[in-house]
């Protein structure tokens, strides 16, 4: 690790919105003035105590924060090694970490006088969170969702409609998260003046990656305090699943300068990270490129055409990754691994049976990696994995993969 190069791993991005070579503002001119406005507004809000007072109030009374840090005792015993803690962000209102960030962006949108909110969604969790907060504030909400995801995450589509949002199925490309993001960007250039684009992960043009990270960092800040209370020290290893990387950045960021804390991001390995590219492991199987407003590791062919990812988990099915992760990968501060669909399904079931928690398929990837490393670690080694979503939305997908007939 190039330790002497950095005073801190927490000082990025620079003024150009770069984390090393990654990040930036690769958007069309139509959007650029808007992105500069957003950056200015966010800079103002960041140091405004009334902004954070509103966030804290909603986090406590609407979302239900702080989420518990839970010692998974049976799972720990079952794996027979490291002591496993779960950060229970699946207990948040709407069932995932996504709402942490949506609250921040919607409060900003209100401050900017925007009346129309658009969002992209993969698993539907970000869409549900956006629809929820828009309902609460009486804002118009339009959610772009790949047609393929509309099908495999049907319960969330209905939830969004109940909450008053318009869900637009996206048929371009292969109809997954990447294509939904393209169409959201197309909506945004068409309706720049009244519309706020609420991005669901630490990707997109600057300032989104930094802003979403800051909103999600509540996760890691709470873990620091809760672990100190439970164990009197920092965790030894952090593990989180990565689609775009927002729940992971939220957990990791407050620990980046604690050099003894090992940080592991888990990408979706799909059917396996091999030449057939049937996976979504951008860092493990991609190379740097430019998409959706930032430079980052991407799944692409030799000619710079973007490849469709593949994963059982709609929330991880994205060919890119937030630029800060690309940088943390390149400077060696964090490690990134891949977990296959089969391994994630196994972890999903184990978690149900050992802990009475039905996890989302996304954190099941993180848990699958915990299952790999925990048995080899000593009993006083503290692992904290981010249980960033609950599995209600996934039971149909899992039933199909396990050959279970839901009608019985």
């Amino acid at each position: 690790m190039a330790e002497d190069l950095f005073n801190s791993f927490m000082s990025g991005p620079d003024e150009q919105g770069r984390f090393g070579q990654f990040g930036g503002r690769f958007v069309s001119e139509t959007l650029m003035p808007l992105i500069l406005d957003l950056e200015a507004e966010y800079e103002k809000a960041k140091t405004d105590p009334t902004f954070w007072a509103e966030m804290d109030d909603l986090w406590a009374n609407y979302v239900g924060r702080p989420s518990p840090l839970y010692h998974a005792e049976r799972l720990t015993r079952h794996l027979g090694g490291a002591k496993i803690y779960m950060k229970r962000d699946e207990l948040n209102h709407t069932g995932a970490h996504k709402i942490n960030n949506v609250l921040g962006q919607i409060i900003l949108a209100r401050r900017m006088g925007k009346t129309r909110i658009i969002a992209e969604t993969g698993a539907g969790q970000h869409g549900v969170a956006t629809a929820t907060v828009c309902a609460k504030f009486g804002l118009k909400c339009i959610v772009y969702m790949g047609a393929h995801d509309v099908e495999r995450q049907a319960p969330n589509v209905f939830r969004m409609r109940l909450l008053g949002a318009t869900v637009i199925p996206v048929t371009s490309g292969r109809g997954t998260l990447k294509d939904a993001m393209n169409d959201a960007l197309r909506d945004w250039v068409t309706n720049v003046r009244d519309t706020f684009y609420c991005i669901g992960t630490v990707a997109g043009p600057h300032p989104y990656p930094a802003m979403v990270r800051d909103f999600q960092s509540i996760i890691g800040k709470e873990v620091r305090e809760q672990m100190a209370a439970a164990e009197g020290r920092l965790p030894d290893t952090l593990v989180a699943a990565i689609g775009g990387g927002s729940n992971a950045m939220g957990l990791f960021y407050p620990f980046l300068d604690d050099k003894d804390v090992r940080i592991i991001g888990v990408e979706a390995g799909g059917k396996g990270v091999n030449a057939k590219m049937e996976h979504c492991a951008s860092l493990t199987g991609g190379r740097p490129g430019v998409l959706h407003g930032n430079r980052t590791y991407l799944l692409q062919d030799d000619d710079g055409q973007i490849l469709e990812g593949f994963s059982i988990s709609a929330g991880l099915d994205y060919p890119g990754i937030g630029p800060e992760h690309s940088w943390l990968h390149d400077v060696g501060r964090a490690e990134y691994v891949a977990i296959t669909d089969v391994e994630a399904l196994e972890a999903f079931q184990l978690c149900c049976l050992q802990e009475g928690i039905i996890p989302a398929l996304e954190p099941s990837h993180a848990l699958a990696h915990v299952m790999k490393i925990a048995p080899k670690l000593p009993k006083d080694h503290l692992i904290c994995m981010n249980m960033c979503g609950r599995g209600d939305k996934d039971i149909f997908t899992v039933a199909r993969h396990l050959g279970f007939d839901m009608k019985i």
Partner: protein
Amino acid sequence: MSRIDAKFAELRQDGKKAFVAYVMAGDPDFDTSLAIVRGLPAAGVDIIELGMPFTDPMADGPTIQLAGQRALEAGQTLEKTLQIVRELRQQDSTTPVVMMGYYNPIFSRGVDRFLSDAKAAGVDGLIVVDLPPEEDAELCIPAQAAGMNFIRLATPTTDDRRLPKVLQNTSGFVYYVSITGITGAANAEAGDVGPEVARIKAASGLPVVVGFGIKTPEAAQTIANVADGVVVGSAIVERIGKGAPVAEVLAFVRSLADGAHRA
């Protein structure tokens, strides 16, 4: 003087407005696309805008998205797009060619390698949608250094505060995007466009060409009346998408060019 500057000087002398035609390279396949491109100068096209297909064209509507998909499915690559320019240059050494697209395929090839290959092929300018002035160091400055025009998009959201920054490293001409939106969507309105063109011309001294939302010979004429030229893309690409024979596509292009040249 660049080929683009020479073309505008010639048009000015003749008292004519520029007609710019956009087609997607490799759509619906390499050979048909090459035949269309080769026929454009004789159909009255003053500047050829050659689309570089990309899987994720964020500023394009369905018509051009589908054109890119057709081209990619037929095996189009950046190398083959350069090949179209090389073959055009064997018959035509005066019609400027501007390549338009997104940054990733260029970044993937390597900026220096791309610029020297494109220059050698006979490309005159670049329009890269996802490179605003904030990212000038990526491609704009190296392109100018390589003797290539970098043509910037100005939009209805580019206010007076921002305009100097947009114009700073622009050369050849300025491409005014007539609407906030994607290609092939709303119609351009001469009443809205005229004052914007005047504002940009006053600030830059460069020719201002208007694109997005121009679909008919009549619209080409009306908008060309208030600008230095017009671009038509989706309307041409739509005909290619419907499988129209090359001669029919070129006849439509001719009607558009005549419209623009009547202005």
